[in-house]
């Protein structure tokens, strides 16, 4: 029997990352740099929210959790388990693209590892999202390559964006002190430290190809806290806006 509390903890943080990142990315809708990109980025934001919904449904259906909509929209801020990376305001497009690159590579590594999970629902979901994530990383890699080779200003901004996001992104791999050992032992997934290592191996060749400098691994100080419900000042306003319509009438049928 897999440790239920540990599984819940893992799924909540995965789902919250997807929801908050999806919402942030959707803020670009109508404001993207060109129409084609606006559509592609918005479509991927929807995919993220779809992943969040699938995970909230696993919580609801397999683990006795609350209704997915209520769980997504009605929790107080400190009960969200999203990492700081995804809460950050969009800033300029270079920042958003670099975050998209780092986040989606991390997400891909995570789901890939769950194709062998002992928890069936995660195993099935990880196979279902495989194609979508392949596109998301293709898109992210293409942009990182393109902008890093588009002249001095563009290159400088991409390097700056990487410097600004790398420690935040490393914070995605914050392990639960309470549950990590059980999750690894139960073969739910290989654990955050292992995913972090795989992620660095995955992003490194792309960054090299783009001539971007990844800071020394030892110099990266992962930004933790999100998994324990400690958030930046940016999450609360996002939650307020995101749940505004839902809160007009939480009982409404759609």
């Amino acid at each position, binding site marked *: 029997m897999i440790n239920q509390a540990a599984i819940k903890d893992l799924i909540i943080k995965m789902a919250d990352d997807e929801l908050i990142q999806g919402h942030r990315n959707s803020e670009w809708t109508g404001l993207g740099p*060109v*129409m*084609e*990109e606006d*559509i*592609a980025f918005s*479509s*991927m934001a929807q995919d993220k929210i779809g992943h969040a919904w699938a995970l909230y449904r696993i919580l609801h259906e397999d683990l006795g959790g609350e209704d997915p909509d209520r769980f997504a929209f009605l929790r107080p801020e400190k009960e969200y388990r999203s990492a700081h990376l995804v809460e950050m305001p969009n800033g300029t497009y270079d920042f958003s693209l670099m975050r998209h690159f780092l986040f989606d590579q991390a997400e891909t590594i995570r789901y890939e590892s769950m194709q062998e999970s002992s928890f069936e629902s995660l195993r099935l979901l990880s196979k279902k999202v495989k194609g979508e994530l392949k*596109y998301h990383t*293709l*898109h992210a890699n*293409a*942009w990182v*390559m*393109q902008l890093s*080779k*588009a*002249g001095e200003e563009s290159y400088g901004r991409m390097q700056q964006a990487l410097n600004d996001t790398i420690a935040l992104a490393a914070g995605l791999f914050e392990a639960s002190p309470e549950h990590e050992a059980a999750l690894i032992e139960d073969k739910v997934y290989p654990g955050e430290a292992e995913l972090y290592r795989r992620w660095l191996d995955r992003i490194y060749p792309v960054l090299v190809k783009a001539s971007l400098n990844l800071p020394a691994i030892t110099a990266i100080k992962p930004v933790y806290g999100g998994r324990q419900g400690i958030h930046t000042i940016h999450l609360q306003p996002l939650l307020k806006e995101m749940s505004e319509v839902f809160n007009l009438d939480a009982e409404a049928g759609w």
Partner: protein
Amino acid sequence: MSNDSLDPRVNRLKLGEAGEVVKVEEGENWNIYEVFHQEKRGAHHEHVGCVHAPDPQLALVFAKEQFARRKKCVNLWVVKSADILAFDVEDEDMFANNLEKTYRDASGFKVMEKINKFKQSK
């Protein structure tokens, strides 16, 4: 006089200084790519529209979400519009007299009668 376009790509070209040669760096200005959509394996790729992109790779990335987001699709082609060779509009007259050459149509061969007769004999 600068060209105050709403499109940043146009402004980057710094048009308007008469007599000066405008030099466009590789990748600086975006191209149009024609998109061809394949509905199932083995089927023809059909032209479905176009996208703006700085290179073929991103054209393909964009085309996927513009043209394969909802309808069934198994593959896409992108081709730079400028690489397509076409006749000039005024050369349309080259095609004009085809209608008078009906003797070239396969329909000239009367075989259906024989085929039907063969089918009935079975």
